[in-house]
């Protein structure tokens, strides 16, 4: 049985159809990649699943319970946590305090939350920066912090929105290892990613969105051979010429 099930979900902004009748299932323990060209509706789908936007139609079920009407904190409390594509660290808090906010999801007292936050900082490689202020971090560290905060809530499902964007290949490699470690601990992961190297390395299945609709879904190596996917990324002519899709 799937842990998260999205069925026929649509969302429009005025006349713009951001996502249209999107359906997919996420199984417990799976790592599903979500890709698509810019403006395909990936982030909108995240907003809808995490409760930040109400869908116009369709239904979503998480762990056997409907997500209709739940607000973001409700969904987080049930174990599904998202990160933001444009990272949003608490700028005037230290790295440790940032993570403590997430950890308080699991425990009621600040002291216990600090202990959890400490462990998460060790895991995410931010321990050395625990006392730095949020605003003093470099982009790669901010991305890590975004991940660390979400992780501190003790999630069952992590929704990662482009955590690799803007990183150097070395940093990307390290983050891939980190996400593998997290997945290895039993966390189910849905990840939006533009960096193909990461998608191919991590995902067991890939879901492709284009103009708000699902155009392909399957194993990564199958999906990149899919004619519709190549067209979506590179245009029809190149698809005919047989050029493979790339990041």
């Amino acid at each position, binding site marked *: 049985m799937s842990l998260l099930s999205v069925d026929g979900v649509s969302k429009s902004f005025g006349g713009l159809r951001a996502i249209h009748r999107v359906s997919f299932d996420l199984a417990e323990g799976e790592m599903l990649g979500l890709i698509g060209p810019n403006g395909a509706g990936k982030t909108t789908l995240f907003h809808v699943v995490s409760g930040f936007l109400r869908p116009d139609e369709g239904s979503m079920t998480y762990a056997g319970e409907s997500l209709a009407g739940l607000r*973001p*904190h409700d969904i987080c409390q049930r174990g599904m946590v998202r990160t*933001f594509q444009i990272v949003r660290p608490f700028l005037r808090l230290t790295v440790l305090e940032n993570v403590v906010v997430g950890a308080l999801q699991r425990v009621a007292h600040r002291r216990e939350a600090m202990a959890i936050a400490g462990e998460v900082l060790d895991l995410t490689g931010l321990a050395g920066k625990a006392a730095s202020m949020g605003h003093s971090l470099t982009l790669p560290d901010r991305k890590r912090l975004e991940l660390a905060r979400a992780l501190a809530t003790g999630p069952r499902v992590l929704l990662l929105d482009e955590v690799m964007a803007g990183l150097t290949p070395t940093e990307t490699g390290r983050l891939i290892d980190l996400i593998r470690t997290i997945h290895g601990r039993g966390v189910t992961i849905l990840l939006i990613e533009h960096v193909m190297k990461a998608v191919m390395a991590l995902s067991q299945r890939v879901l492709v969105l284009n103009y708000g609709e699902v155009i392909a879904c399957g194993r990564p190596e199958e999906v990149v051979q899919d004619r519709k996917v190549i067209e979506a990324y590179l245009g029809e002519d190149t698809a005919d010429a047989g050029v493979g899709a790339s990041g």
Partner: protein
Amino acid sequence: MLRLGLGAAVGVVLLVLPFWVPSTWQNLLISTFYYAYLGQAWNILGGYAGQLSLGHAAFFAIGAYTSAVLATQYAVSPWLGMFAGAALAALLSLGIGYLGFRFGLRGFYFILLTLAVAEICRLIALHLPILGGYTGLFINFSPNPWQFQFRGKIPYYFIALGFLCAGSGLVWLIQRSKLGVYLVAIREDEDASEALGVDTFRYKMLAYAVSAALTALGGTFYAYFQFYLQPNTVLNINHSVDIMIRPIVGGSGTILGPVLGSLLLELLGEFSRTTFASGTAGLSVVIYGALLIIVVLFLPRGVYPTLAHRLRRAGRIRP
């Protein structure tokens, strides 16, 4: 050890101080404590949770009028009446909070909402006979501690100091708790807080209610220190500014901010009054304003954060 010693020294000085200083200084100290207390109450909502209220005079007035009317009309001791006022103020804050937070008013729009409600309260008070309307409400002086009425300034000094210590203690507890962490997170980024499981609506409502209730308790103190309540004074927008300016100058979102801000502004006010009062009318206020601008220009984050930063740096250079 040094901190403990310092704290004890300050405590002893505060205990003996009112018996040694002239009565004008007693007034100055009472005013300092009292506005620091009100600033501390505002600080919970404005400084920690980052929801700026320009309408705290409404809660203040509810506290002042409720305890005064209960005492004069129904013979209820202000010591009890003050809690009735606090409850009413909390209720009003929950009403405003529901409207503001449920419909997502942020920043300027929330400020305007709080200001509008305070103005409505002022107009209501001006037209309610039981509150004395335009003429205001007088409280007859009959010294009786149970009626919150005392001879001389010294009891008021200790009550104001007690209010400040209790209020600051509460803020200290909040700051060290889950509530404090969540309020600061909400101030920094509401959406990110929601994503991390913080029920932002609930915690903002809680901060508002606590802040309003504490402000109302301060209103009762004012009523029995001044013995006269007039809507155009207690419910004036200037009064809301008086409440919020001290934590802002001292450093909002810190415990010592409201205290240092209050001390600084009282001293500036006293200095400009005594030095320039004999000259052109209104000159002292202009000087006060100019001094305020200078403070804000040079200490934009507030007195306490700047001071703490300097001290830490100095400590690092000479360990």
